[in-house]
């Protein structure tokens, strides 16, 4: 038994990790052309506790389960997930309406290195929907701003209309305690911001690599090149952290679905240092 008292949610997860708890959709929001954000209330009335970068297995009843990162504020408010409809489960989840039930199993995994980043400059690099798993880390960085050095968000999106959490990103841009740069891959004449890939923003970055921690999330190809660009800037492989997405089933290190050699993405990750991930990123499919 653990020596600290557990919330009811945590105790249930500990006792029966494969049994989802019930939550209900409080609000839904269309956050990008193919991404929906769901705010959830746990049926037991408890606040759902998690660390930035952790994920849940969400059940669309009658359809199945999928791994989805938490995208809300770890310090307050409801449990929030942002879902891109790509297949049967994510489509069903993203179509849930207010009041609909949903299964929640989690939180799982090792999240962003918030403690390790204390006293350091933090560079957050997000690509597309990759901003969702990073948002809890950004909330934490901004809420506990004095604990960290300079905070920079570099965000790459496909087109201006695909910018996830657009209003919030604009609000962050207006703040004096975080540097925010947004770039898009494709733009029309109306867009006045950067155009080009997100690695391009890294080459312009002015940071002291010896006291910088990087947190990166996005498509795997993008993360590979972002990691290389950060290495070119002088960051060490141990200070670059990436969040991996691979197929998952049990999420507790039993089924081997997400296994890469001796590493279980669900249990040992999804956030890893580049030093640890580098050989695994070469594995094409799992």
């Amino acid at each position, binding site marked *: 038994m653990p020596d600290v008292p557990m919330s009811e949610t945590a105790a249930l997860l500990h006792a029966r990790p494969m049994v989802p708890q019930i939550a209900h959709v409080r609000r839904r929001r269309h956050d990008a052309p*193919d991404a929906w954000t769901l705010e959830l209330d746990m049926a037991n009335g408890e606040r759902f506790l998690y660390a930035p970068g952790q994920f849940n297995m969400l059940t669309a009843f009658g359809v199945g389960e999928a791994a989805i990162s938490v995208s809300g504020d770890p310090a307050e408010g409801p449990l929030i997930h942002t879902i*891109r*409809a*790509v*297949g049967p489960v994510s*489509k069903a989840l993203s179509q849930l309406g207010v009041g609909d039930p949903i299964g929640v199993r989690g939180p799982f995994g090792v999240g962003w290195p918030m403690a390790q980043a204390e006293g350091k400059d933090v560079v957050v690099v997000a*690509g*597309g*929907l990759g901003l969702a798993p990073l948002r809890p880390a950004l909330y934490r960085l901004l809420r506990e701003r004095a604990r960290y050095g300079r905070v920079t968000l570099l965000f*790459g*999106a*496909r087109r201006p209309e*695909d910018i996830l959490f657009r209003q919030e990103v604009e609000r962050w841009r207006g703040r004096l305690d975080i540097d925010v740069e947004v*770039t898009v*891959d*494709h*733009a*029309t*004449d109306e*867009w*006045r*911001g*950067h*155009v*080009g*890939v997100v*690695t*391009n923003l890294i*080459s*312009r970055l002015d940071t002291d690599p010896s006291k910088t921690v990087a947190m990166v999330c*996005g*498509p795997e*190809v*993008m993360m590979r*090149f972002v990691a290389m660009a950060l290495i070119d800037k002088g960051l060490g492989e141990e200070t670059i952290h990436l969040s991996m997405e691979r197929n998952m089933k049990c999420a507790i290190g039993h089924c081997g679905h997400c296994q890469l050699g001796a590493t279980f993405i669900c249990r040992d990750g999804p956030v890893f240092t580049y030093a640890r991930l580098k050989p695994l990123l070469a594995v094409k499919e799992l």
Partner: protein
Amino acid sequence: MTENLERILSEHRFFHGLDKAFLELAAGCAKNVRFEAGQFIFHEGEAADQFYLVREGRVALQVSAPGRGAATFLTIGPGEVFGVNWLLPPFRWVYDAKALEPTRAISMDARCLRGKCESDHNLGYDIMMRLMPILIERLHETRLQFLDLYKSHA
């Protein structure tokens, strides 16, 4: 005046660390230029007679297609360069360049710079070695853009 340009050139990332004698040669081809927000700097099809080093502001490189308007494929900011078609025949712009913000740049006269590179191959080689990494990087970035990584695979 040229001395001032030499200093400005030496402070720009593109010419950083350039040999003093080369800097003098290059400064002989350079002048300061300013563009207003919305002003076109050059158009596709025109002669590539300048090479630009941005000091302040932002420039969009665009290609226009009938019915689709102007598509921006890259923006260029402080410390970066654009207009690399100046170096090799047919010396012609293959896109439009438009200032998105009030922009200050150094404009290098292409014919003058080509002439100096031709008569001093050491200068030519040095400049080529500064341009090649930029071209390779842009090719790589264009590949990534082409892959459309953030697109949903649904």
